[in-house]
């Protein structure tokens, strides 16, 4: 990463100008001021790198936003080169299960047998880990463990466990590297936003093996596309089916069907073939659970679909709606023992009539019942309002202006959930561009860490220490246990412990004590000025300014700037 030489502008002058500038209300779109450009870069990306503010000032805000709304047109080969070394990011779920997850389970069991202690439930039957953290990660500077699938499947248990861990170690690193280095900054912000909206928890059983594909194939392709398509992709993904238990959601009547099917097995004939498959699936699930087959509905997914994915908690649904939605999604499953492909099981489906949000869904619809529910939800005004509110919270303010939410919701309704259009409505709104939206949000830990690396132009050879920092800061990536996802608003992130942890991160970064992350040594004065102008864009108190001026070393200047109150906001 190249360091631009500092511009010979006296920082004090810049500050004075900024402080004295009246709130203009609106950005000059063609030639934005430095603070305005910084605002755009902070909110639509992970903060300015040295030189970014000048770049936006050169091409103009409108053109930059337009570019970002078309990520496919942006060259991102530098990032791709950084990700090329990871071995699991491009694999499909079946391969990850076969070559990484299952060998790890076998090894864990073998180890338990060898120790012949009391049988411990493996994390894979334990639905949820208590600690909300990934298993201990390898030492930060060590290269990513790359136990070959063959060797890990063979004998050495510890290597096999590492092979399971590598899935998450790579995901965490990839997420950070994308946030830091991708030129498609808005896309990365949106992938984070939508993953969090449809949160799944890597600590629940085999979910970890499905997350790579979930983020890559289910979330990423739709973040500027169709909400309806993303919703169905999520509903039929093994990650969500497992995390919210819908894979087990079965009509109470299915018990009879199961018996019939098992009897059917003994009567061979072409007409019974699907029945055999069904019975096989149920048996496989029974084996997976170590018990007899389950029957009866499970409301978990249905409730979160309404509360968290679409209508919002005050969106106007009842407990009856939840039960009916759960019935509509009976039989939406997959066969953990046989692969990860979505599978609709007619034998498990409740084919009776349902009533959802006052609409009748006639019986006999099969898989179409669930699709019909998704259609209803996407067309519902509560969904438009809920999605508009969340996007406005992410991009504009913790308590977004009602007029903006209304406009974005209208755009959602008009376009039937075209997320590119809804996003555009939010990020080109006067409310977003208004100068007073600037710095009203406290950065989340991910935004803080990624923006710190971008601000300092640090070179990341290993992102592991950054992933560890996020755990210390209370935001372990992929390990948010509740389906709610991480908070979009600031309050919970502003705690004394969190601030101390941010100061410590700043000190470690400044002193080059994060192994695998290095800040080039350069002229202290130049670095200081670059941080003031290019990163804080002049938003800096006289106290912080004085402290920066006193900093004797580059270490201290970096630590002070990154740990400063000003840098915690965007």
């Amino acid at each position, binding site marked *: 990463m190249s360091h631009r030489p500092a511009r010979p502008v006296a920082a004090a002058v810049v500050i004075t100008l900024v402080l004295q500038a009246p709130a203009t209300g609106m950005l000059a779109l063609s030639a934005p001021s430095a603070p305005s450009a910084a605002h755009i870069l902070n909110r639509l990306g992970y903060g300015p790198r040295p030189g970014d503010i000048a770049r936006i000032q050169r091409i103009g805000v409108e053109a930059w936003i337009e570019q970002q709304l078309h990520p496919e047109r942006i060259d991102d080969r530098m990032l791709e080169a950084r990700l090329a070394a990871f071995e699991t990011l491009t694999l499909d779920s079946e391969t990850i299960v076969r070559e990484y997850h299952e060998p790890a389970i076998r090894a864990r069991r073998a180890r338990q047998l060898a120790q012949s202690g009391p049988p411990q439930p493996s994390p894979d039957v334990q639905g949820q880990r208590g600690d*909300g953290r990934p298993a201990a990660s390898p030492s930060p500077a060590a290269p990513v463990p790359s136990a070959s699938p063959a060797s890990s499947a063979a004998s050495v248990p510890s290597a096999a466990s590492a092979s399971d861990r590598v899935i998450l170690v790579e995901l965490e690193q990839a997420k950070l590297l994308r946030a830091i280095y991708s030129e498609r900054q808005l896309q990365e912000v949106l992938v984070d936003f939508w993953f969090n909206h449809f949160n799944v928890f890597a600590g629940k059983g085999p979910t970890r093996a499905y997350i790579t594909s979930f983020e890559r194939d289910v979330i990423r392709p739709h973040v500027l596309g169709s909400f309806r398509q993303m919703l169905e992709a999520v509903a039929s993904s093994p990650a969500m089916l497992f995390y919210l238990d819908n894979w087990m959601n079965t009509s109470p009547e299915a018990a009879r069907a199961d018996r019939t099917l098992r009897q059917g097995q003994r009567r061979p004939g072409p007409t019974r073939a699907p029945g055999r498959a069904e019975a096989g699936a149920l048996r496989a699930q029974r084996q997976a659970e170590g018990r007899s087959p389950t029957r009866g509905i499970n409301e978990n997914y249905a409730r979160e679909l309404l509360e968290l994915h679409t209508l919002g908690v005050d969106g106007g649904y009842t407990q009856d709606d939840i039960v009916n939605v759960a019935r509509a999604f009976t039989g939406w499953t997959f066969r953990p023992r046989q692969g990860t492909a979505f599978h609709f099981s007619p034998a498990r489906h409740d084919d009776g009539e349902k009533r959802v949000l006052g609409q009748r869904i006639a019986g006999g619809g099969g898989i179409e019942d669930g699709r019909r529910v998704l259609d209803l939800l996407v067309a519902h005004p509560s969904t438009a309002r809920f999605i508009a509110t969340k996007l406005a919270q992410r991009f504009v303010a913790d308590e977004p202006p009602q007029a903006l939410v209304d406009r974005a919701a209208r755009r959602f309704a008009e376009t039937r959930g075209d997320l590119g259009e809804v996003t555009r409505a939010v990020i080109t709104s006067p409310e977003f561009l208004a100068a007073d939206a600037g710095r009203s949000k406290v950065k989340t830990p991910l935004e803080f860490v990624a923006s710190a690396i971008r601000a300092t132009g640090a070179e990341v050879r290993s992102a592991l220490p950054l992933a560890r920092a996020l755990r210390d800061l209370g935001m372990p990536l992929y390990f948010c246990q509740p389906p709610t996802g991480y908070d979009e608003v600031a309050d919970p992130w502003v*705690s004394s412990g969190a601030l101390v942890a941010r100061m410590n991160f700043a*000190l470690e970064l400044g002193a080059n004590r994060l192994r695998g992350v290095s800040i080039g040594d350069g002229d202290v004065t130049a670095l200081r000025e670059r941080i003031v102008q290019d990163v804080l864009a002049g938003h800096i108190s006289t106290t912080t300014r004085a402290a920066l001026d006193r900093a004797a070393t580059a270490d201290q200047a970096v630590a002070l700037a990154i740990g400063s109150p000003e840098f915690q906001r965007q």
Partner: protein
Amino acid sequence: MFLKSGAMALVTLGFAPSFLARTVEAAGTRKKLLIAIFQRGAVDGLNMVVPFGEDEYHRARPTIAIARPGRTDGAVDLDGFFGLHPRMAVLKPLWDQGHLAVVHASGSHDATRSHFDAQDYMESATPGVKSTRDGWLNRYLQAVDEARNPLRGVALTRQMPRALQGPASALAMGSVSSFAVRGDMAAKATFEAAYAGAADRVLNGTAAEAFDAMRTLAREAGTRSRPLGLTSYPRSPFGQALQEIASLAKADVGLEVAFAESTGWDHHANEGGATGQMANRLDDFSHGIAALAQDLGDRLADTVILTMSEFGRAVAENGSRGTDHGHGNAMMIIGGAVKGRRVLGEWPGLARERRFEARDLAVTTDFRDVFAEVVTAHLGASPAAAARVFPGYRVDPARFRGLFRA
């Protein structure tokens, strides 16, 4: 002075005879203490404090019910009708000593089955009202006029829990040991000055509390004692958080309200019965609490440990051998002054027609009746102060359950 530091040295080593420990404590400004424990994810209270005496319980839960006491893996009998989950047997001595009571069928009058809303309502203690800005524990700290000391209210969590959010000084930290700026004096002083000079009142106030607290903790570091008691804390984040709380409670830092959380209770599938997922969580939960009670030693006399969860789970198990979101739940209260050995509240029964919305355990005790009794009878808040802690709710001692010995 010599005696004090000598005794402290002994406490630090864990060898202090109890009379010396008492002397040390008496020398400080020891306050009544509330340790609030939130079971996030809605614990299945019917499998935690089991109404084994009711046939409907066993009928509604063919695969996950806990067997009657005396049978294999049966419940730990409390009073002939209720029993503890077998993995909670470690808490039975506290029951036998009269230090543990349960308030069953307690919860919120609000019907929400959303984790997020229900946690919010319980932590703000204003069910149905989302606009409440601060949490009930913070309002307690506000209502009782005290010198500003951020260590009055401490959450051993990385994020500030909703219950402690608000204008009164309070701290949230992942652990006490991580709560220090790891730089030289100059770096610390500069950060402190930068935050003190910031116009940003939110960050400025939070940082001021952090620096105050760091100084106090550094000063008191020598007095923090090793755990007392035979039960060791689980090596889980929950166990570690409780251990840190005990250590703060025993040091002279002015702690009045502590908060910890236990996660992973949302068992929609394969919940298990006497063994399995929930049993493992209960094991961690109850071993943590048992160790805490022992470790507090004499301090337990003026401490209340109160457990809570956002709502209970449906009476009947679902199609996946788990339980879906329900309503009423069980709270546990432990302390030296607790009038224990009792399951309090009115038991509404589990028969279908007795259930809330024909599916869930009904609520017969407003959780605020329990909170309010703790705030007044234990923490000693005046009626006027208690009224400020619970806006929109009339604090009425007639509704209290009689948690404490007179």
